[in-house]
């Protein structure tokens, strides 16, 4: 199935200094646009393969798209415009955020953490029951 080489476009956009978030959004929009072009051609009676070929042509070459985006410096990330400040600030921000990482991870994975805690509690109860049963067995014999 012919589709635009979004992987190559993604790499080019990241190299040209766009932020990863902005690159993801651009790719998503282009991907949706491609699907819309295919859907329109199919609705007009073309076969899927021909529609995809036409959509590829209409959307344009990914290198050209990357070049057009690269011509707009306002779309580049803050770190690209101020690399020296970014190099100084990023480690400081990382150190500041580091203590909060376990907390963030806990909140993000609260469901899994909850399951793990429930399993740990359950296994504790089972172990305690077995120990109690053994104690009682020894006491009675």
């Amino acid at each position, binding site marked *: 199935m012919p589709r635009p080489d979004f992987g190559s476009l993604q790499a080019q956009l990241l190299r040209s200094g766009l932020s990863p978030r902005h690159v993801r959004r651009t790719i*998503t929009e282009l991907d949706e*646009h491609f699907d819309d*072009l295919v859907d329109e051609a199919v609705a007009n009676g073309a076969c899927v393969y021909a529609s995809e070929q036409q959509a590829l042509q209409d959307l344009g070459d990914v290198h050209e798209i990357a070049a057009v*985006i690269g011509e707009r410096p306002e779309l580049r990330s803050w770190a690209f415009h101020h690399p020296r400040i970014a190099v100084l600030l990023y480690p400081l921000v990382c150190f500041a955020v580091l203590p909060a990482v376990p907390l963030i991870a806990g909140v993000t994975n609260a469901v899994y953490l909850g399951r793990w805690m429930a399993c740990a509690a359950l296994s504790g109860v089972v172990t305690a029951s077995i120990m109690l049963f053994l104690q009682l067995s020894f006491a009675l014999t």
Partner: protein
Amino acid sequence: MTQTNPPFMSGVPELLLLRLLDQREMYGYELVRSVRKVTGEAISLGEGVIYPALHSLERNGALKARRKPVGGRTRVYYALTAKGRQRLDKLRNDWRRIQGGITNALEVPSHA
């Protein structure tokens, strides 16, 4: 096939995008189709290169974008802001001034 973005069209895509978004919010594909329709296919924006233009307008505060799930897909809809409306008014006035000037120049007899 319609040629897209000839060199003299600098600024025109921005004007058209702002004008269309002044009516209602739209997503990229819809905007490309609308530009073709309202200009009688005289102007055709590049399918893939409309997004840098939209993102640039958004970065300048002329547009705001929001994601909206439609028919199992997530569309990014663009809407005009107050700043975008001001930009549209300015571009519209500039365009009318240039259009008037060019019309006058074309109507002047060639031997003048």
